[in-house]
């Protein structure tokens, strides 16, 4: 069995048998990889806490036919701050869930790895509720299905943009409105995010809660529409939707 090294982020883990786990990672060079971490649930495991979801790790794996086998793990960076905050943890897990859905097994997708690492690093240094939607929108843009937010998707007019439609893929002017209403402030944030100015958006602490909620809700519905499934992690502590 050939041995190889890579860096990656743990996206999720499943219990396997008595004391093992199947770990799903997004790696820099090999794309999504599923590997068995033997004995990880024992207190004496050499892997310890290194293979928890959201961990950024350097791994040494044995290549298997379907599942690889984890041989060694080293943490690249520690995300203690994220794990002490409930909102940050659930947002971080939602980021992992989205990336897991977008990635393909053994198909290199360094951009997914890079974007997830960046987002998790920012989440750990300073929590912002806008980080998750920002990542979701940038991922959609990378996939080629990013929303059009600077002109009406029907008439291409740039004035009086008042609504946004997930199915239509962008904003609409007052004359052609069909989707949900969007405030000028929320629209400005979407434009900034899609222009790549994420840092300035997440550092802005003066935004009203309603605006943040609008952006979070749009980011989630746009991603759910693309994935054709619900994002479980981000809907966990919310009231069920009608």
């Amino acid at each position, binding site marked *: 069995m050939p041995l190889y090294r890579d860096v990656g982020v743990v996206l999720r883990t499943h219990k396997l048998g008595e004391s093992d786990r199947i770990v799903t990672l997004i790696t820099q060079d090999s794309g999504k990889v599923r590997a068995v971490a033997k004995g990880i649930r024992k207190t004496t495991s050499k892997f310890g806490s290194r293979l*928890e*979801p959201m961990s950024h790790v350097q791994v040494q794996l044995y290549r298997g036919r379907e599942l690889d086998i984890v041989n060694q793990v080293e943490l690249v960076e520690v995300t203690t701050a994220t794990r002490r905050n409930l909102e940050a943890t*659930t947002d971080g897990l939602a980021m992992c869930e989205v990336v897991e859905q977008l990635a393909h097994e053994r198909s290199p997708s360094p951009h997914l790895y890079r974007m997830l690492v960046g987002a998790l690093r920012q989440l750990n240094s300073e929590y912002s509720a806008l980080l998750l939607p920002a990542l979701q929108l940038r991922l959609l843009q990378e996939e080629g299905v990013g929303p059009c937010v600077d002109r009406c998707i029907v008439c291409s007019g740039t004035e009086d943009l008042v609504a946004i439609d997930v199915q239509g893929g962008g904003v609409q002017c007052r004359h052609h409105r069909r989707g949900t209403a969007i405030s000028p402030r929320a629209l400005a944030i979407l434009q900034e995010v899609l222009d790549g100015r994420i840092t300035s958006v997440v550092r802005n602490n003066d935004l009203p809660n309603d605006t943040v909620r609008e952006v979070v809700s749009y980011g989630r519905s746009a991603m759910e529409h693309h994935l054709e499934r619900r994002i479980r992690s981000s809907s966990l502590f919310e009231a069920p939707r009608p």
Partner: protein
Amino acid sequence: MQAMIDSLARLPGVGPKSAQRIAFHLLKSDVEEVKKLTNAIQEARGSVRFCDRCFNFSETTYCHLCTDERRDTSVLCVVEESRDVVALEKTGQFRGRYHVLLGAINPLEGTGPEHLKVRELLLRLEPEGVQEVILCLNPNTEGDVTAMYLARLLKPLGVKVTQLAMGLPVGGDLEYADEVTLGRALMGRREVGE
């Protein structure tokens, strides 16, 4: 014969090879011995249920830990599964009562608080005069999320919420400890002789 092997192989920790070995062993054993085993399994399955108060396994409405008058009712230990109660009881250090959540919040699997015995936990606090809730959950992401969620829920009710200390296993070497565990052990340090 094959049906027996297949059924045995479905048990946790029993692979097809072990299932075959157990099956052959049972076939060679005394008929009375096998009857004893099947009766024991049937009886246990038929009579054991969840305790109405703490959701631990019990043969009666309330389990033996809930009905033990000598136990301290002001301290409640919250665990994920019944087997955690067994592990904690073995330490002999805890004399309070337990509450089994029957799982942990798992955001990636969509397991939320409504799937666990959280509401039942809240309903126990006042009638039993609980003053401290000890969260004894697995030290992984699911356990952490559950602990943070419960702490947020319980603290406004005026209950002291504590969590198991996290750190190095007794008998282990420091150099093999992972960064997170060692970091948590360092954060939770205490004065010698306390």
